[in-house]
């Protein structure tokens, strides 16, 4: 038995020395015994029974889909969110030429908003061309209403709109509401080429063009009033990915270049103020996401130092830029804002990521792995003063933009030792140092230790135990008014606060004869923020699951799963702006489970599968204060789904297929339920509701193979 303990690796120099030492000594001693003992080759004999593919074949699947009701979950991303009928159309065709070239055409869900199509051509192992197109819809909340009308790239109010100081005093509110569709869609076209040359080189080119259009729910405010409104999305992204890989013997090199150019067709969201304007702010204007570009070059080298020692070095340099012209400081003609420091941000952020990993196997049981990583975000954008016109109402103070930098260093070492087939122990240590500017704590240091044990007392039984401990502290926390923006000095933001974390995971697995698989697992994570008086004080999450699958022969399969997921956190705040005078306790609990059966015999005309899945969530929040204790209304979301798919073969070339999907969805969300446009005096809400419905989707189609 070889034991090795890495007790403390917290120095970059030591790490580099370690790698260097290992590298040179390994090279010095290593033999060139990579892989010469190949099985002796022989000419493969002709095969009479082999059914190699040749010629052309394909299928068309055509039918219909009926959706019983509008819905937000079952059809959220597959285009089946609207009540009504849809065409079901899938198809596939391939031709294999005598030269071995293959041409494939494929279309899926062509009758819905989730359609995709592709064309592939190539010679396997030599080159491949691919043209792909797909659409991906996303349905937002149902029931949105708005008084705004989208005209000339602006959200305007009805011509006879009379403003009000509150939503209750807007005389035309109820009669001016119209339905707003909160949905977006991505349309993606991409082209790729893969070319393998000289057996060791592999070249890839991928070009992608994506359009994302639609609108999502957003909000826009004037001082003390605000309106929920549809925010347009009209984005285009073009990206190119080029890579070349060389792999031969002990060496593998990968070089890549990536360019992504994002363009927003809308530079601003302009809207009319439905509330009685203050200081002449009848209109507002918000900057939408600016055009930007990001490019990155990367290189990775993997070298097999010895047959058991592998070294990988990877580095990526990226650069993000953004230079959209600024909007004027305000749309309010009554406010004379000072001249802008410059016309555009001319922003540039450089990223750098360097990683190295050394793995070695020692003997039959011992394995050692060492990792180092450095990530840097260097924001080179010039910092300037900008006079703020707060929500187009008043010119106020000057603010200076901040160019946030971050450097994250991670060093880790782990070892694994398998004593025998019965048991394996693993352990590791990591240190994570993060430096930030404009932070109350400039540097955080986290030390992490973990260990795991796998015990296989029987061939079919396995236990896993894992324990992780980490402690995070860092530099002195300094509340500089320039940085803290009036933050309570007792606040400890959770990503920089001192933190003690303990996590453990236990599981037992049963695997009998490749037929029965059973797994029970329990995972707990506890975070404690010992020096935080205000902010997040503690957080606990617990996850328990059961998973079982059983294959009854080669035709019938069962699957059952169930899980409980609970997370709880305690945080505090201070209304009086001194000591903590209130505390909030959040508890989220989710139960989920399902049962599935699949019957797929090879010779039967019938094939079917069915599953039932359940998800039940409840979220509780409680705020305790000196003057009151307050229990929020619960948030609930319950989903019950049933899904049945079946296929019946009429002949070798013709089959019928169909399906039934049913979902019962009930939810309560105090944040949006019964929140009508006029419920809150200073919030013109969009009137969305949490989803509650029963939905049935029926599909029926005929498949013709040719």
């Amino acid at each position: 038995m070889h034991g090795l303990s890495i007790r403390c690796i917290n120095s970059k120099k030591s790490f580099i020395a370690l790698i260097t030492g290992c590298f040179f000594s390994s090279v010095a001693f290593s033999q060139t015994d990579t892989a010469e003992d190949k099985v002796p080759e022989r000419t493969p004999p002709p095969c009479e029974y082999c059914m190699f593919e040749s010629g052309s074949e394909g299928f068309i699947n055509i039918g219909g889909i009926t959706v019983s009701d509008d819905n937000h979950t079952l059809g959220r991303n597959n285009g089946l969110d609207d009540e009504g009928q849809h065409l079901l159309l899938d198809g596939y065709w391939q031709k294999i030429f005598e030269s071995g070239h293959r041409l494939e055409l494929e279309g899926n869900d062509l009758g819905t908003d989730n359609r995709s199509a592709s064309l592939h051509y190539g010679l396997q192992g030599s080159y491949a061309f691919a043209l792909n197109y797909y659409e991906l819809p996303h349905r937002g909340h149902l029931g949105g209403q708005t008084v705004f009308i989208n005209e000339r790239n602006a959200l305007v109010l009805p011509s006879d709109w009379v403003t009000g100081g509150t939503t209750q005093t807007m005389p035309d509110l109820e009669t001016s509401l119209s339905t707003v569709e909160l949905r977006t869609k991505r349309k993606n076209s991409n082209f790729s080429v893969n070319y393998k040359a000289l057996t060791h080189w592999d070249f890839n080119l991928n070009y992608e063009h994506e359009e994302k259009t639609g609108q999502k729910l957003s909000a826009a405010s004037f001082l003390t009033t605000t309106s929920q409104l549809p925010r347009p999305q009209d984005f285009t992204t073009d990206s190119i990915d080029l890579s070349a890989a060389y792999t031969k013997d002990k060496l593998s090199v990968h070089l890549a270049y990536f360019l992504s150019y994002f363009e927003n067709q809308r530079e601003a969201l302009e809207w009319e103020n439905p509330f009685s304007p203050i200081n002449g702010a009848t209109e507002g204007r918000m900057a939408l996401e600016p055009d930007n570009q990001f490019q990155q070059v990367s290189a990775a080298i993997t070298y097999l130092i010895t047959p058991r020692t592998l070294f990988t070095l990877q580095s990526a340099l990226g650069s993000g830029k953004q230079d959209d012209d600024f909007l004027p400081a305000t749309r309010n003609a009554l406010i004379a804002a000072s001249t802008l420091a410059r016309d555009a941000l001319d922003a540039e952020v450089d990223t750098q990521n360097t990683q190295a990993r050394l793995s070695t196997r020692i003997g039959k049981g011992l394995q050692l792995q060492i990792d180092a990583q450095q990530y840097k975000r260097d924001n080179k954008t010039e910092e300037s003063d900008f006079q703020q016109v707060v929500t187009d109402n008043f010119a106020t103070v000057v603010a200076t933009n901040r160019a946030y930098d971050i450097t994250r260093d991670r060093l880790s070492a782990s070892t694994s030792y398998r004593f025998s087939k019965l048991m394996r122990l693993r352990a590791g240590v990591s240190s994570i140092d993060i430096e930030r500017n404009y932070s109350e704590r400039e540097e955080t240091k986290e030390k992490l230790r973990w260990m795991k044990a796998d015990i296989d007392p029987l061939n079919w039984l396995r236990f896993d135990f894992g324990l992780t401990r980490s402690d995070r502290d860092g530099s002195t926390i300094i509340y500089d008014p320039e940085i803290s923006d009036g933050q309570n000095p007792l606040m400890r933001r959770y990503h920089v606060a001192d933190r003690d974390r303990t996590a453990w995971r236990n599981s037992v697995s049963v695997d009998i004869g490749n037929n029965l698989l059973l797994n029970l697992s329990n995972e707990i994570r506890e975070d404690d923020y010992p020096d935080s008086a205000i902010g997040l004080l503690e957080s606990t999450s617990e996850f328990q699951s059961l998973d079982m699958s059983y294959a009854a022969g080669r035709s019938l399969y069962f699957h059952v799963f169930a899980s409980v997921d609970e997370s709880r956190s305690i945080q505090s705040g201070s209304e009086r702006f001194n000591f903590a005078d209130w505390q909030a306790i959040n508890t989220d609990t989710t139960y989920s489970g399902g049962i599935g059966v699949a019957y797929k015999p090879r010779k039967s005309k019938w094939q079917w599968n069915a599953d039932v899945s359940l998800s039940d969530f409840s979220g509780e929040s409680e705020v305790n204060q000196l003057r009151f204790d307050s229990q929020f209304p619960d948030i609930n979301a319950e989903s019950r789904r049933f899904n049945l798919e079946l296929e019946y073969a009429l002949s070798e070339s013709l089959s019928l297929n169909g399906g039934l999907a049913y979902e019962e969805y009930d939810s309560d969300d105090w944040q949006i339920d019964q929140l009508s446009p006029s419920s809150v005096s200073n919030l013109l809400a969009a009137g969305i509701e949490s989803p509650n419905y029963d939905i049935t989707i029926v599909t029926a189609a005929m498949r013709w193979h040719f």
Partner: protein
Amino acid sequence: MGITTRFKPAKITPTQRVLGALRGALLLPAMLCASLTHAADDPALIFVAELPFDIPYTEDGADDCLRCHDETSEFPVMAIFKTDHANLADPNTPFAKQQCESCHGPGSEHAGRVRRGNPRPAILGFEKHSSGTLEQRNGVCLDCHQDSHDFRTWQNSAHANEELACTDCHKVHTHSDPVKTREQANVCFGCHAEQRADSMKFSSHPLQDGQLLCSDCHTPHSSLQMASITHFSTNELCFSCHEEKRGPFLWEHAPVTEDCSSCHEAHGSNHPALLTRRSPLLCQQCHSNRDHPSLALGADNVLGDTPRAEVFMLGSGCVNCHSQVHGSNHPSGAGLNR
């Protein structure tokens, strides 16, 4: 065989202890790495299919196999001919080499005559309880696939550390390998139960219908990144689909520039937009400024029997006004509301 090296603990200031440990950490692996290269029977990071060399191949190759393993047999295999592994145009495929025996090894004993009552000699199989060891089974796959850069570092990967076999995820004798189709998530969920539970939550990425695949974000075969993500950082990964949030913005929100997962759960949440918590309590975990960010907002501020429905709580909470939470490029947008 290896060298046995003992370390005697130094006496014993903390500094000396650290230096001693470092010295050990430097020397021991180096020596072990070097010395153990001679252990030719140990599992290696580069793989050669460990097939039985002393058994001859079958006389008729795949025909000898397919005489028994047709569609009516206990182990039907014909679907292999619908897969890339049986593409004769590619000289690197198993069927362009030794056909079935490229992977299962020389099979003359297995295919030969067996005395009645005697068991048929086993051939290398790929199911968990088959005759092959993990190294043998993975070695067969990697013998070919490690020529690709993507698989070269398999032995470094998280899945290799968990001692997974290729065939734990991949099905070779099926027309379409589920893990390479829209069914992929169901394969991954077999082990990653927490991610399955997350994907069933109210707000999630579209994993359930297969519009997004686990492999769109994670590299199962090799990655140096935490959680084996496909990009060099969490933010780069998120921005590969959410480019509009990439900026750089004039007014940045610090946690956005650092780590999207500060506020969002990647796999699913019961709060809107995959948030870890909902506003205002989520925001109040970092913001405790004077006035409204510090307020203890409770049930008094919620619709219902109580009259004080508050704009800070309902709708989108803080985001009702600070809607540019991912950053603003407006000169007057320092408060992330323009």
